[in-house]
């Protein structure tokens, strides 16, 4: 962002040493490179998911006649259709939509916190960091509910995979489809959830340091920016997880 404001002596370039050529501190560079490598971890997992899923037959029949079966990959909107307090209603992808909205809003509040940091406005940084933490916690809470619902599954016999009497899901068995369906769901959303959880911890650390005036004394709020990069990345990853698990 600041690369355009790098002015150099005639005949010299910003890459000639003695300065930070990209106009970014080493800490910010490190965060970028970490995110690059983390992106490869998630890509590996999502590609793995894609390969295993494509190795399983897809459901071919009409959507309204869909039944859970271990013989084909389930249709996601038939699996994720529950919303808290609206028991028994079929609301496909409504709840996960709310979760996604919450996470994206927390990214917006993070942007506002970073912007407030640029203005050295401690009160505003505190306010927006707090909202970001709340957003993160809300997302984690929703995920906990979703997992719990997924694990417990149906109460009656209708939604049981053929030939079994298993309700809900664990890492070995599940009522929704092939074994790998639930295993990947737990693994990838869990891996992402772990990232969100560490993000919330980092956000809290930043919030705490802001409240105690550490960054005011330091003279800049760059830490907010670095953690902000991480938070946006976690959001971006969720967009892909959401696409591959719920939409496709």
């Amino acid at each position: 962002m600041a690369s355009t404001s790098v002015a150099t002596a005639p005949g010299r370039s910003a890459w000639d040493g003695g300065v930070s050529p990209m106009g970014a501190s080493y800490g910010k560079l490190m965060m970028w490179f970490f995110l690059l490598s983390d992106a490869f971890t998630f890509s590996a997992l999502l590609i793995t998911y894609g390969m295993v899923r494509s190795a399983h037959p897809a459901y071919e029949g009409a959507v309204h006649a869909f039944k859970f079966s271990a013989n084909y990959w389930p249709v996601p909107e038939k699996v994720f259709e529950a919303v808290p307090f609206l028991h028994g209603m079929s609301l496909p992808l409504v709840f996960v939509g709310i979760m996604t909205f919450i996470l994206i809003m927390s990214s917006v509040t993070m942007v506002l916190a970073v912007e407030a940091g640029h203005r050295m406005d401690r009160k505003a940084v505190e306010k927006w960091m707090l909202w970001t933490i709340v957003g993160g916690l809300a997302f984690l809470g929703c995920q906990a509910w979703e997992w719990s619902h997924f694990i417990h599954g149906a109460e009656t016999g209708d939604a049981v995979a053929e030939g079994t009497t298993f309700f809900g899901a664990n890492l070995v068995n599940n009522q929704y489809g092939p074994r790998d369906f639930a295993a990947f769901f737990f693994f990838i959303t869990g891996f992402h959830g772990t990232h969100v959880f560490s993000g919330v911890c980092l956000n809290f650390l930043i919030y705490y340091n802001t409240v105690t005036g550490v960054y005011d004394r330091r003279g800049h709020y760059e830490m907010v920016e670095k953690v902000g990069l991480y938070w946006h990345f976690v959001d971006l990853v969720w967009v892909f997880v959401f696409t591959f698990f719920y939409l496709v």
Partner: protein
Amino acid sequence: MATTDIHIHQDVHHHGDGHDHDHDHEHHGGNFWTTYIFSEDHKIIGKQFLITGIFWALLGGSLSVIFRLQLGFPDMNLEWLKPILGGWITPEGKLDPEFYLALVTMHGTIMVFFVLTAGLSGTFSNFLIPLQIGARDMASGFMNMLSYWFFFASSVLMFISLFLETGPAAGGWTVYPPLSALPQAIKGSGLGMTLWLVAMALFIVSSLLGSINYISTVINMRTRGMSFTRLPLTIWAFFFTAIIGILSFPVLFAAALLLIFDRSFGTSFYLSDIYIGGEALAHDGGSPVLFQHLFWFLGHPEVYIVLLPALGISSEIIATNSRKPIFGYKAMIGSMLFIAILSFIVWAHHMFVTGMNPFLGSIFMLLTLIIAVPSAVKIFNYVTTLWKGNIVFTPGMLFSIGLVSFFLTGGITGIFLGNSAIDIQLHDTYFVVAHFHLVMGSASFFGMLAGIYHWFPKMFGRMMNERLGQIHFWITFIGVYMVFFPMHYIGIAGFPRRYYSWTNFETFSGFADLNMLVSLAAILTLAAQFIFLFNFFYSIWRGRLAPANPWNANTLEWTTPRNPGHGNWPGEIPAVYRWPYDYSKPGAKDDFIPQTIPFSETPESNLPHETELIKLESTSGDDIIIQGGKLEGNH
């Protein structure tokens, strides 16, 4: 905001040099623990990696000699190893067949990851990057320290796994499932495999912490005048290595996590349709080939993580000791870049016989064979650098030349193996073993030894004994060829790797003599390493005191005091005015011109375009002002 940071950054690392240093000196009064154990000084951390790497190399080498005894002397009574190996020697005085597999597995794991990744890249990236780019230390000394201690924790776990009753991991260093995933399959797939996976996860964390640090340091902390085109080739190599590392290790991390889940939590990512004792396992729907894809997406770049630092080190040493500029500096960088890119799109050549589509195989074959082009560019550049040079045969130089030899010999067999059709015959034979031990194992190991001999004076302030170094070189060089050259023939004959014994196959009995020779040469080669060990440890305390610049080299590390403290340069960090390869420049007084000498001081040897550069030298780096007008309000 960002530009504000630059001011701060510059204050710390350039303008505040004098002050920084005083501060560091106070630190040095610190106790033993902060100075040598939990040190944040890149030089100490580099040495920590080196010592740990030497320990692992010795262990990994010894393991190979034990299984070579089995291969070379199948009838030998190994009773005498009982005090060390205990129950792994059967009552008949034979090596336990499952332990043989564990030995092969641990030899591979140790050598590839703990010696040639951590021991080589960890040592020299840490030690050389700040010294050669002109920085006080790594970007983050703390993360650097963490990187070592994660590696240490990983080492401890891997070491403990050697002493388990069920033995360490035994499914080969590539740990393919289902063998590695099912404890019922082999003893080593029990706790040993669990420890292997946890140790590797820690290792990956260590590697990422290190790599992120190396890249940021090279980008942000170069001294004034040290543009990328004035970087020594060592730094370029470490830079590419670190980039490959941060892009490929996370994929192994994902693969390992999934394997952990399959092993411990009942998932079926890699497992399907398996019957043990006539009974079907619950696992269903996964694919073991999937693991191979994930593994080799790391595994192939890993080859270059191992090799590139060695190539960088040898480029530097060969230019210095040929007293000639490196031939094709930019071609060297370009070929390393090209190799780095190609390394990510050739992984499936390890999997030609997994039943992949032959059309896909031919694409991977084509990409694989293209690697021969940048590799050949490098070989020719080494040879043309040596051509008509005033070669000084220091031990470091000998090992560098040895590297070039191995890289060529081993590289040529790579062209055979890269062909998907020939690979059907050669796959998993000793031909493959010979190929990668020469091109990546021995070549990188020689690069590491060359680096140790060359930078030992900077590490410990003393010289290693040159004569012992030369003896070490010749025995090792001849020994390595005697080990791996015959293996090609054994492999072409179809002898498969990882087999405990071939005495049941009449076809292979004709190779008993050759195998015996290989084993004897392996013992000889390992024995020669003790010459090195003696030389190394003796010279640390008793070696001849090193002059400031023992090899008359140009790079920045030789402008530091004999024993540089934390902060490297006592005064200001020197500025850089030229590339690092001004050796034997026509017209120059000496046959080398250090990077710190401005063109204005060498009018007699300047080329026309360099005379032009003198104008720029008056505007020293301090005058470069980074202006961030739009951000003034921030202060």
